[in-house]
Structures are given as structure tokens and as C-alpha cells.
């Protein structure tokens, strides 16, 4: 029985059921309308129901497959989104240079064999170049360095 619970398809089915259920709860506030005059809820509720049913189907079919979930690439999975979040938080307060430096260095650490010196060198060339592309060539007003 344990095997079924950690099988890839079973988990995928659960995800579908949960997401479908979540949308149903959220969309229950929207008016459903009639087929002739559909309300904003008609389409989401129909789709969520479909997702729920598909989820049940996937769970049932997982009883036959029992393929185990492959190991996650855990370190990059945690580090890369964190690096992007750091960029998003730093940029408005300190400008592109610190944010860019942070994202290159942090993201680089996602690889176990990261070479910090190489990453710093890379960032020092890359960050001004990318800023130049967006701010100077494309004219997007992003400050290079700022303090606010």
C-alpha cells in the first residue's frame, strides 16, 4: 500500500484533485449563469470539475503503474527561485547592479561545483552588458544603482 502512495501518478492525481477543488471553492463566488447567458463562473467551474475528474482517473490508473517519483534536483530547485526572488526584492531599492550581481552569484551556487571567482568575473562583465541592452538599447528606464 505504501508503494501506491508515493507513486508518481498517484501524487499527480492528488495534485489535480486538490487544484480542482481549490478552484471550485474560489469560483463558487462567481455567478454560474445559464448556458445561454454564461456567468463568469461557468467556464472555471466546468474546467475545475473536469480537472477533478481527471485527477480521480489518474489516481485510479496509478494503481496499475506504480512508477516511483524520481529524485528532485533539490539544491537548484531551492536556490534558483530564491535567487530570482532576491533580484525582485533588491532591484527597486538598490538598482540593477546589486540585484544583477546577487542573482548571478546566488544562481551560480545552485551548481555544487560552483567557482565563485569565475562567477564574480562573469557577473562583472554580464551585469553592465545586460543593463546596457535593456536600459540603453531598448530604453527601459531601470536605474543602474540607486538608493531608496
Amino acid at each position, binding site marked *: 500500500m505504501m508503494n501506491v502512495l508515493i507513486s508518481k501518478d498517484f501524487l499527480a492525481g492528488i495534485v489535480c484533485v486538490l487544484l480542482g477543488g481549490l478552484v471550485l471553492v474560489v469560483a463558487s463566488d462567481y455567478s454560474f449563469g445559464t448556458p*445561454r447567458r454564461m456567468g463568469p463562473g461557468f467556464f472555471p467551474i466546468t474546467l475545475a470539475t473536469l480537472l477533478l475528474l481527471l485527477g480521480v482517473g489518474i489516481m485510479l490508473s496509478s494503481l496499475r503503474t506504480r512508477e516511483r517519483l524520481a529524485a528532485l534536483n533539490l539544491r537548484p530547485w531551492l536556490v534558483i*527561485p530564491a535567487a530570482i526572488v532576491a533580484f*525582485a526584492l533588491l532591484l527597486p531599492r538598490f538598482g*540593477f547592479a546589486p540585484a544583477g550581481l546577487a542573482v548571478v552569484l546566488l544562481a551560480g551556487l545552485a*551548481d555544487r561545483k560552483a567557482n565563485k571567482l569565475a562567477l564574480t568575473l562573469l*557577473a562583472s562583465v554580464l551585469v553592465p552588458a545586460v543593463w546596457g541592452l*535593456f536600459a540603453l538599447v531598448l530604453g*527601459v528606464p531601470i536605474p543602474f544603482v540607486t538608493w531608496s
Partner: protein
Amino acid sequence: MDLLESLQLGLATALTMENLLYCLLGVSVGMIVGVLPGIGHLAAVSLLMPLTFHVPATAALVMLAGIYYGAQYGGSIASILLNLPGTASSAVICLDGYPMAQNGRAGAALLITTIASFIGSCFAIIVLILMAPPLAQLALSFHSADYFSMMVLGLVAAGSISQGRPLIGLASVVLGLLIGLVGIDVNSGAMRMTFGIPELFDGISIIVIAMALFGVSEVISSIGKAADGASSTRVTFRSLLPTRKEWRESGWPILRGSGVGTAVGILPGTGGGSMASFMAYAVEKRISSKPDTFGKGAVPGIAAPEGANNAAAQSSFIPTLTLGIPGDAIMALMLGALMIHGIAPGPRVVTENPDLFWGLIVSFLIGNLMLLVLNIPLIKVWVKILQIPYRLLFPIIILLICAGVYSLDRSVIDVLLVAGFAGVGYLLIKLGFEAAPLLLGFILGPMLEENLRRSMLLSRGDFMVFLERPVSAGFLLLAVLLLLWVVWGSLKPPKPSA
């Protein structure tokens, strides 16, 4: 407007300095990402989509399309030299391309694949030129119910064909449709699934979704796994020339491959040329008088699939441009780029934006010529590029993604959404969900709802309208047959290996 006039208009549009430049930029970027294993054309197109905000619609599409078919050329290089497919669609090329390289025929293999790519593309472009206008004309008579059913067929195909788990594929489509609903409902003005965040009122940008799923998630799963390539194969210019026997062996396979690829590329849900190249390989192997040479460096084994994946790359534009129905994720991105520029995809594009339509098609021809000329002389450069280690490459990708997403609206929320969708997306992909059908659902969702609503309004709430109109009924019948076929296939007892 007759065909000659149209082509003249296309030529005039495609030959402007600006469009030529973007075409060159597109095919060059395409070739580079095609060569590099670990970055696909989907990631590259997503990465460059923010740039298209700043250029006219035609130039934007010319560039994005260039990346796509340019990558098809580049993809075979890594397959032949390193036995690593640069793009999914050139995975088949490894089977016979790498053995050829080991036999000292790498140069000849590269030249044959380049020529096969060119012929395959041209073949499909001619079919595109001939088929697109009448198809668009026909589609103009479609009713909203017909559109709804056509989209249903496209989505069912996208969800169920591409992989062995049709239910999860379909769930991916539905998930995409739901994400596409986020924002203000245009008909009622109601906020849907915005959770009170003002940045979500206008919906989630396709660029955010594409970058998260094809850029960041891809990076997360490639780190520590993408092999850093250093090729020991030396390619001299003299070894480029195929022998007379090799020429003879590549002629018909290229043409057959082009035919197979063109046909497969038009079908919905056939995903980026890989199905086309696998099918072309299978056809060659079956009709070959020496099937045992396949896998050991058979020339038809590289010529046919290479012709096929390039043909499919071009012919997949047929349904996208004439019907507004994208067959795969990359075409969904093309539609997204059109919509960003305020052009509603569909059969009207041909008549209302003839310069864009014909300019784009002629740019395909020009781009393929550029690729034919550039690919071979630059082989030494490609071999150098293959040596860039992935651990230096991916921080560049992440920085470009961050800067690109922020440049759209200067919105921090968009950047945070990319991080969130990437994290969740990686998990979903691990569970077997698929990014490509999800994106297709996302882009078609609003159109699907709109057409459903319109048909129901016109039919006074009678669902029979979808069965009473022959076109619509035909599409739905195909969708049902497809579903039955896929479900039947998946119900067969699983292989005993489990």
C-alpha cells in the same frame, strides 16, 4: 490579391533593412541555442520575447520564427559531434550521425544535414504558400461553434498525443486553461482568481509563464546533469564533401523526409518536430534495402529526419497563421507575440495584415538561405561554443530572464511570479505534467471561453449547435476518436518491466 502580388509584397517587407537584421539575429541566436545542449529553442524564444515589445510586429515574428528554425539547423551539430541532441527534434540524428563522426565522416554528415534542412524547409514553405490562403479563406466561413470545436480538437491532441500518459497530458491542458482565466472577465467585469492582487487584474503574461516553465524549470532540471561537451572530433573543410555514394544515398530520403515532416507539422499536438523526425527515420528504415546499416552511420538515417524536422518547423505555421490554432508550444508563443502587438490571430491575419503574413513567409526563405550559407563556415565556432560549461551558462540565462521579465512592465510581481511558477512548475513536470500542453491551454483558454459563450448565445443555450454544424461536428468527432484511440492504447496491459 493574387499569389505573385502577395509574394512581391512579402519580398518588399522582408527585404527592409530592419527585417533583414532581425532575421539574421533570429537565425544566429537559433543556431547557437540549437548547438548548445541544455537550452532549447523554447527557452530561447521565451528569453527574447521581451525584446519584441520594442520592435514592430513583423520584425518581432521574423526574429522569433528565425530562432525556431535556426535551432533546427544547429541541433544536429551537437548530435553529430557529441552524441548529445542540441534540441529534442534532433535526437534521432544521434543514431546515425554520431557513428558517422566516429567513422571520420563528421564533415560530410554536417553538410548533408545542412542541405537536408534547407530542402526540407523550402519544401514546407512552398506548401505553406500554396495552402495558407485557401485555408484562411475557408476558415473565414467558420462559425464560433466551429472554432470552439476546432480548439477542443487542438487541445485534446496536444494533451493526449505527445506522451504516454494521456490523462496527465489532458490535465496539463486544463490547468493551462485555468491559469488563462486569471484576471478580469471581459464579459462581466468580474475578477477571477486574482486574490485581490492588482497586478493580476490584466491576467498573467504569457512571457511570465513561458520563462518560468521553459526557462527556469528547464535550468533547474539541467543543473548538474547537462553534460559539458568537449568534442574530440576534428572537422576539416576537406572532409566536408560527401562522396558520390553519400550524395546518392541522401537524395530520396531528404525528399521523403520533407514530405513526412510537412504533413506531420500541420497536425495539431505534434510538438516541435521531434515526432516528424522519428517518423521519417522509421519510414526510411522500413523501406531501406539495408535496414541493418541503420544505427551504424547510415546516410538516409540522418538525411530524412533532418529534412523532416525542418519541414515540420515550417509547416506548423500553416494552422497557426491561417486558423489561429497553434499546434505546439512554440507556435503558442508566436501567437502570444501577435497578440502582444494587438493582432488577433485567425484567418483574418492573411487579409488584414498581408504585409506581416507574406513578409514573414518570405523571411523564412531568406532566413533559410542565411542558415545554409552560415552553418558550414561557422562550424569551428560552433565547436567552440559547445565547450562553454553549463555552470557558467545558466546564471546568464537566469539574469536575462529576470531582466527581461522586469522590463515588460517594470513589475516586481511579474518577477516573483516567475520564481513561483518555476518552483511549482518544476514539481509538476517531475510528476509527469507537461509544459507544452499547459502553455497551449493557457493561450487558447480565453478564446475557447469566448467562442463557447458566443455560440451558446447564438444558439439560445442549446448545446446541440456543436453537433448540428457539420464542420463543428467533424472536429468534435475527430477529438472523440482521438481520445478513444489514446485511452484504448493506455488501457493495454503495461509492459512487464514495472
